[in-house]
């Protein structure tokens, strides 16, 4: 278009039906990417397709259904090797000479192992359970379990537990809101996550940006992160929490740090992160005091010492090639929980090339870690949380059967409150008011509505999980953990099945 670079091709097309458009301009007001304008001299609302990111906010808000966002119809010459996306990215880089940024999770067509795994069900010889008639337990304890349990008898001759059991988190549903920082998200989203976690008896995770003081009353349901930037970490922060998490890596961008641009650091974020207003918040790629398992052990015990050994400590790593050995080291370093973040995990901002090419699938990482810890006889030392691309309750059940104690949901939680996966989180202009700190846009996320939606999501998943447990004849989720015999593979190779530790369908 006039004045635009000739190398810019739109991704989307905003189709407006002028027989329906009443020129209310709601779409103009809601579009945060300058893709929609009102032209007074034409008395019309028009759009600029090259600016449209496909978030569909206008489509959702239009009172007359006048808008349709479509994939751009114009096509490049067919090419099975160079996709339109490759071309557009390349043009953009040739234009700007920079790294292409993105948000969200890896959206490339790598295999999805969840969809190659099927669940078993009871028939005739082993009765299934009706979850509506019989109690069904989803409660999960997260933390170190003792190697053996000793009983002693008291004066009255009654048995009592002699073994001291370390601190454990008790989640009524084994689904926890994934670490997403205040800064990447706004306070409204944190408010909603905290309220929903409390309502459902589960947990949410602050991410690496600290915990706003307003949310201290939700401390019992909050996992606080200690990341390489140490933002917002202080004694009180650790003390109000339910558990502490050392963030080593993130599935969307293993091995690289984080960067919250100074423009996003407003008064409240500055207070919470403990950095000056307007300064860039840079999280180094590694923790500069952790270069070995021994160093990690020091930090784990520093955190435990600071909180009187009353709270479990979790260590979160990205799923990478050598994940099983690393996890074994983490368990031995004294962690109570290990979080494995698969390559589909989301991010507020990452170079697209990293997000799309680094890491391994969570299904493989999870199976490998669970097996390794079992082989070494230390599986009970830690709980495993699987993260990175959990889409529905079926994925949760399969993750548990592959060896997870619980899962984190990040992208799924954002979807629940409106996210449409446009992957523009890094711009800070999220039109759904989620990954923005612009007070004007952040208002779109009403924390009360968002909390209700998150609670509904967890309720629905809990219900479905109970149904699935029932049909497998299991009445407590803890009995399914690592029970890979209840899984079968379709369309996988021998090696893949070996790593996942599951049999092919029919076997």
């Amino acid at each position: 278009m006039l004045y635009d670079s000739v190398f810019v091709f739109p991704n989307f097309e905003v189709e407006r039906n002028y027989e329906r458009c009443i020129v209310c301009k709601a779409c103009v007001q809601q579009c945060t990417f300058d893709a929609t304008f009102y032209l007074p001299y034409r008395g019309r609302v028009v759009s600029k397709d090259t600016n449209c990111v496909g978030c569909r906010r206008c489509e959702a808000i239009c009172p007359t259904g006048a808008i349709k966002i479509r994939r751009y119809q114009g096509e490049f010459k067919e090419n099975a090797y160079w996709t339109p996306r490759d071309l557009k990215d390349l043009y953009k880089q040739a234009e700007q000479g920079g790294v292409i940024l993105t948000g969200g999770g890896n959206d490339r067509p790598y295999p999805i192992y969840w969809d190659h795994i099927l669940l078993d069900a009871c028939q005739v010889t082993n009765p299934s359970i009706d979850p509506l008639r019989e109690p069904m337990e989803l409660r999960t304890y997260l933390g170190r379990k003792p190697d053996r349990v000793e009983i002693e008898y008291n004066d009255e001759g009654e048995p009592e537990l002699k073994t001291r059991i370390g601190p454990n988190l008790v989640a009524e549903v084994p689904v926890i809101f994934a670490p997403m920082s205040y800064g990447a998200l706004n306070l409204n989203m944190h408010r909603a996550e905290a309220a929903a976690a409390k309502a459902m008896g589960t947990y949410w995770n602050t991410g690496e940006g600290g915990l706003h003081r307003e949310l201290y009353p939700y401390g019992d349901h909050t996992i606080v992160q200690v990341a390489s930037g140490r933002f917002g970490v202080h004694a009180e922060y650790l003390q109000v929490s339910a558990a502490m998490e050392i963030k080593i890596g993130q599935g969307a961008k293993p091995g690289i740090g984080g960067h919250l641009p100074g423009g996003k650091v407003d008064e409240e974020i500055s207070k919470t992160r403990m950095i000056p207003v307007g300064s860039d918040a840079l999280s180094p790629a590694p923790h500069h005091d952790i270069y070995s398992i021994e160093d990690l052990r020091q930090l784990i015990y520093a955190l435990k010492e600071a909180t009187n050994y009353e709270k479990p400590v979790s260590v979160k790593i990205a799923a990478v090639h050598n994940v099983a050995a690393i996890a074994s080291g983490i368990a031995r370093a004294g962690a109570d929980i290990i979080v494995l973040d698969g390559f589909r995990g989301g991010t507020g901002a990452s170079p697209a090339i990293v997000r799309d090419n680094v890491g391994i699938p969570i299904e493989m990482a999870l199976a490998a870690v669970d097996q390794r810890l079992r082989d070494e006889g230390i599986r009970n030392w830690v709980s495993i949380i699987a993260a990175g691309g959990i889409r529905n309750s079926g994925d949760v059940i399969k993750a548990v059967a592959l060896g997870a104690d619980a899962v984190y949901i990040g992208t799924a939680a954002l979807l629940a409150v409106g996210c449409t996966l446009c992957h523009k989180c890094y711009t800070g202009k999220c039109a759904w008011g989620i990954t923005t700190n612009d007070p004007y846009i952040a208002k779109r996320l009403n924390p009360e509505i968002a909390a209700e939606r998150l609670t509904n999501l967890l309720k629905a998943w809990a219900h479905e999980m109970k149904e699935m447990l029932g049909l497998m004849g299991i009445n407590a989720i803890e009995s399914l953990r690592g029970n890979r015999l209840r899984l079968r593979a379709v369309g996988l190779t021998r090696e893949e099945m070996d790593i996942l530790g599951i049999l092919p369908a029919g076997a």
Partner: protein
Amino acid sequence: MRQIKRRIYPIEENCMGCRLCEVACAVEHSRTKDPIAAFLEEDWEPFSHTVVEMMGPISFSLSCRHCDEPYCVEACISGALRVEDDGRVVVYEEVCVACGMCVVSCPWGAIKPRKRNGVVKAAKCDLCPDREVPACVAACPNRALIFDTALGPGLEKVEEEEIIEG
């Protein structure tokens, strides 16, 4: 005897300035109550009684407060504005002489002159008599308008307090 006091309350923190409340109000007070016809086809000009006030990130939708002692009723020279038994402040159009006294007296700017069929009359929020929940409240996507049907102070016959959120 007034029994209930119904009011629409704007919640500033939740209002995102989309103005769908204005659209809904105009549609509800149109001939056809059809969104497209109301704006594009009818001979009546679309007219909203609620107005979204905006300044920077602050916005809220303001309509008649249905005051207990309304200035407009006091100011009206023809007796066209009245407080009804249910607490609503209502314009009796056939009595209105369009002098504009109510328009200048309302501290909220909630009454405006409206031209319809070539005649100007005072127009203001009527709490949508044909609807259970006013149109603006029902249309708001972010619960920035709350319809409160509680009894006002000093009023009797409390049955139950009901808050309907839109």
